[in-house]
């Protein structure tokens, strides 16, 4: 397969992925926006006004970057996990497997689809946040870079989950029991400076903490973590997940008998 054909194959997968989540927009785009609007109203306006400042910022300004990142993470992950597992479940993943499309193109295609939804929802939530909070962007390059890398990383994680999944339960276990607790404990709603030594140390093991803080730095210039550590952490995790996902596809794990 020459490069031109590879490009056609990649753009075909990405187009198909975008078409999929756009076709079912009431399931894929509307719910996260409504959820985030509720977060802004409850945590930002109703409770936030009584909390006062967090890291010398009005509470709504403090939580807004975390909430945007939360929507990027959950949507990137859930798009790939549900699309890839759905293809496995209906067996239409075989359409791709019998074709000459290389595994790395399949991987990139699904990941790009996940990123398209994650970043799309993230963008809508950002517009929503502007309605609730005032902020000027502190660093556009940091903001863009960290949101792209985070979306990439969770799209890869969603793909690995989908490869291993053999039932619909298997695609909801990780988001429910791993992803959600990590996000809630990842510095979205509070600064880790509020935590005591042990809990602070434990929080530093949570990769989401690094992404949320780097993104918050990009948006409002405040962070609990060194942002170079954040980029290193996200880069390292993304690289590991990329090679694991590629290895699983090459091996045909749970895809070819």
């Amino acid at each position, binding site marked *: 397969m020459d490069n*031109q054909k590879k490009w056609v194959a990649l753009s*075909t997968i990405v187009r198909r992925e975008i078409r999929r989540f756009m076709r079912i927009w009431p399931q894929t785009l509307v719910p996260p926006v409504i959820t985030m609007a509720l977060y802004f109203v409850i945590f930002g306006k109703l409770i936030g006004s009584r909390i006062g400042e967090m890291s010398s910022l009005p509470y709504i300004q403090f939580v807004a970057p975390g909430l945007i990142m939360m929507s990027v993470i959950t949507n990137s992950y859930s798009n790939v996990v549900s699309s890839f597992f759905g293809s496995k479940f*209906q067996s239409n993943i*075989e*359409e791709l497997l019998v074709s*000459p499309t290389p595994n790395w193109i399949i991987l990139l295609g699904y990941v790009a689809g996940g990123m398209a939804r994650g970043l799309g929802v993230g963008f809508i939530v950002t517009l929503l946040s502007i309605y609730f909070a005032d902020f000027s962007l502190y660093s556009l390059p940091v903001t863009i870079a960290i949101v792209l890398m985070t979306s990439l990383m969770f799209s890869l994680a969603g793909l690995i989950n989908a490869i291993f999944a053999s039932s619909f339960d298997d695609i909801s276990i990780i988001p429910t029991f791993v992803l959600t607790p990590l996000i809630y404990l990842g510095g979205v709603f509070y600064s880790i400076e509020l935590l005591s030594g042990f809990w602070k140390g434990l929080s530093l093991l949570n990769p989401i903490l690094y992404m949320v803080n780097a993104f918050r730095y990009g948006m409002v210039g405040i962070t609990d973590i060194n942002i170079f550590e954040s980029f290193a952490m996200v880069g390292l995790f993304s690289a590991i997940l990329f090679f694991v996902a590629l290895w699983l596809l090459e091996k045909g794990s749970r895809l*070819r008998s």
Partner: protein
Amino acid sequence: MKNLQSNALQIESLVKTYDNNFKALKGIDLEVKEGDFFALLGPNGAGKSTTIGVICSLVRKSAGKVKIFGIDIDEDFSAAKQHVGVVPQEFNFNQFEKPIDILITQAGYYGIDVAVATERAHKYLKLLGLWEKHNVPSRSLSGGMKRRLMIARALIHEPKLLVLDEPTAGVDIELRRSMWSFLESINRQGTTIILTTHYLEEAEHLCRNIAIIDQGNIVKNTSIKNLIKQLNKETFILDLKGEVKDIKALDAYPLTMVDSSTIEVSIDKNQSLNHLFSHLTTEGVEVVSMRNKANRLEELFIDMVEKNLTTNKVSDNG
């Protein structure tokens, strides 16, 4: 007519052992010539779908060599796959997508750009009688239409080898005949076709060469003509006028009363039927119609599979 020279498919000592240690293929050898219409027959679980799975990369072989138009799949499976189109047994397209989108997307996986893919999709949807439904969700198609959609999908990259795994299963007779005529036409245009089927009449009607696979072994690999030649016995059902209580036995013509107005008789290939009819006339029995008990190939197939079963039992015991 196309010259049957080079191999479209060459399989040598192909072995497949699944993770549960089930040996689905026990070292099969198979050659399918370019331009051939080839049948792969076998009972359920014989290894037909596993063989097809290996050819299209959905099943990883345990040992052996597979070459598609001379390309070793171990060396360049991607290049080999460009030549293969597969129609699986089960519906495996996205039921929420429209037929037109399914075809254009499939073409994209082979690196065919949207303009060419759209043109081809229109062509195959029209050829297979699906044009009216090109823009509806594919889950709303009938079973026969879904099968034709899978054929269109397999042809969208214009493969030189088309592999069909029981394409007419559950399809009504009229549609089956129209699919036969479509497959015959693309074979005449040069596409090599490998077909697995349970309908032996289908293999006899369509195919030039045949391999019978049973319990992971090829038990016969020959032309349909040769296979039919090996058939030395045929069983006929004779419908009688009125009811008959008993018919006197006739040497060399084993007669069996099925019921009071039907008899069954087995006749060797070179035996004349005249003597039988003279005997029945003498007995005062009037025959109103006569038909084969089963498809000729079916009888031979059952005979071979049974022989293979017996041989395996003997070797297992031995």
